[in-house]
């Protein structure tokens, strides 16, 4: 089986899907001639033409808004937002329009669209090229929010997102783009269902819930602790909306202890929802407080590496939290 990076997987999957389904189109800034600032659409314009792989004006609200229109008229648009930070000017179109179209029309109109949103930090992107925006969107009924962490899931979830009749925010962690490699079956159009978490590492003492880059930090922390006799279970959430409450609760019922790791700001981050769910639904199984480890409550991740490093929950901080829980 070929081994690919995440960014290569995104690109190849888009390529296959566009060849398979001619209603798919891509639009965004620099996605055409340049193939995207991360290369996710490299070569696609040459193959599928300027209308199906379209460089747009610099205007996120109309990128999403026009994609909504295209979806209403029978296409399956895949807008790319260059950096997650820049989806905020399109917030009204995403929240008031895409997410509410089906509901407000009593199920008669719908918006099948996949918004590709590169997010996350650790890449010296500073305040405006590092942000986590999942909490904003996973709070919005009518939107699906997926956060694949490895190449296999990236292909499988991207296909599911494309097959979905409703708007899906497809969040790709920038730092993992080239860092993470994995096997991706060729030829087989397999899918990974939206809304299913995956236990990436089984354990018995503490459950750790993460996604994106934090998944890898958590896995490494768990590895380090195994040597010290602490058995941490690590769950890759993969999808935040819908959230796989069953898998989460099952894990907590087994270990009795939960740590949620995310790089977004702590307060009001989506980890709060996971903690609240556990606190309500698994109370009787809990042997320790539900703990969260997250980015601090500062506007965003600074540029200077001294500050950027300090911002991110690293392996050591995660290991400390797990140990704390294990010893509780």
């Amino acid at each position, binding site marked *: 089986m070929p081994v690919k990076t995440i960014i290569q997987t995104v690109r190849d999957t888009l390529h296959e899907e566009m060849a398979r389904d001619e209603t798919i*189109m891509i639009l965004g800034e620099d996605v055409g001639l340049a193939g995207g600032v991360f290369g996710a659409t490299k070569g696609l314009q040459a193959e599928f033409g300027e*209308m*199906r792989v379209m460089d*747009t*004006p610099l*205007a996120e*609200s*109309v990128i*999403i*808004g*026009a*994609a*909504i*229109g*295209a*979806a*209403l*008229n*029978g*296409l399956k*648009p895949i807008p790319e937002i260059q950096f997650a930070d820049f989806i905020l*000017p399109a917030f*009204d*179109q995403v929240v*008031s*329009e895409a997410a*509410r*179209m*089906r*509901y*407000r*029309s*009593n*199920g*008669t*109109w*719908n918006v099948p669209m996949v918004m590709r949103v590169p997010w996350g930090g650790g890449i010296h992107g500073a305040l405006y090229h590092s942000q986590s925006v999942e909490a904003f969107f996973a709070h919005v*009924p*009518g939107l*699906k929010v997926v956060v694949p962490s490895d190449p296999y899931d990236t292909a499988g979830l991207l296909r599911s997102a494309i097959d*979905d*009749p*409703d708007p899906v925010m497809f969040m790709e962690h920038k730092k993992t783009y080239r860092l993470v490699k994995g096997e991706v079956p060729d030829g087989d159009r397999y899918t990974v269902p939206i809304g299913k978490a995956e236990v990436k590492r089984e354990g018995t003492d503490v459950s750790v819930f993460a996604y994106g880059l934090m998944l890898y930090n958590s896995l490494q922390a768990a590895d380090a602790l195994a040597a010290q006799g602490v058995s941490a279970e690590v769950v890759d959430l993969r999808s935040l909306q819908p959230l796989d409450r069953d898998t989460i609760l099952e894990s907590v019922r087994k270990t009795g202890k939960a740590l949620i790791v995310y790089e977004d700001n702590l307060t009001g981050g989506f980890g709060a929802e996971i903690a609240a769910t556990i606190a309500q639904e698994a109370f009787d199984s809990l042997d320790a407080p539900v703990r969260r480890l997250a980015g601090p409550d500062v506007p965003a991740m600074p540029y200077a590496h001294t500050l950027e490093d300090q911002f991110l929950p690293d392996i050591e901080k995660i290991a400390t939290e797990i140990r704390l829980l294990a010893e509780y």
Partner: protein
Amino acid sequence: MATTDQDLTTATSMEDRHTPLGLSEEDLKRMYYTMVLARSLDERMWILNRQGKVAFVISGQGQEGAQVGSAYALRPDKDFFLPYYRDLTVALTAGMTARDLMLALFAKAEDPASGGRQMPGHYGHRAHNVVSGSSPIATQIPHAVGIAMAAQIKGEDTVAAVYFGEAATSKGDFHEGLNFAGVLKAPVVFICENNRYAISVPEKKQMSVQNVADRALGYGFPGVITDGNDVLDVYKAAKTAVDRARAGEGPTLIECKTYRIVPHSSDDDESRYRQKVEVEEWKQKGPIERMRQYLRGQGILTEDLEKNIQARVMEEVNDATEYADKAPYPEPDTLTKHVFAERS
């Protein structure tokens, strides 16, 4: 077409202006009927509100001419309509019925726009390509551009017509939409019903150009000023724009100079921001009055026909009211339906 406000004089000439536009007498009668029906429905809505029977009305009175004149240039069920909340007459022209509108007013389950979920005035009907609208101003404009872009990609000759007030042209979504449409040469027609006010805010506080149409200069396609109370003037501009769009020549911005002769909504007290006399003046120049005069001058509207129309309209309005009043409300447990596609 008129070019300044001063040109907006009541058409009194007896000359045949419709035949050169390709409009038959039947067309004119249909347009007229639709306007009268819209007005009567609209008036009934206010009565129902004053009677305490419905919580909210938002109205199109005074703007029927701009609406029917433009919408009539499109192909129902084939082209796309993106009306805003004053567009009763657009909705009717596109194929929605009096019952449809009354069902929405009463917030009944059968309302085809939203099943009673949205406030009245949020038109929508999938079967008629009337796209569901929301409340935030101007958000429908990018949708229209995207619909037109999809038509280009699919090689279809669909045109999208999108409606909004003059205040919507202050918003980013207006600019981003028109700019993108200009770049794409997309088959879309932007129709602004300039009724001079955004709730209480007069147009001179909304923009510092004299005409909304002037804004088209920044987008590289024509901006056309029409006398929005003259159905034929609007139709002429709309027909030209739709033909242009369908021929691949790109978008047009049409400004319809008009006036709303009722308060912004049933929650509004218009005495805070305008004089009765101004409203009365505009009522005299109303689009229905103007068309009636024209049709009479052309010998198309006889007294008998007028009576007949009034009677049919009343019947339709009564029927719609009764039907909607009796229709059931949405069941409480449908609250959680249609968030996502139902799982099969």
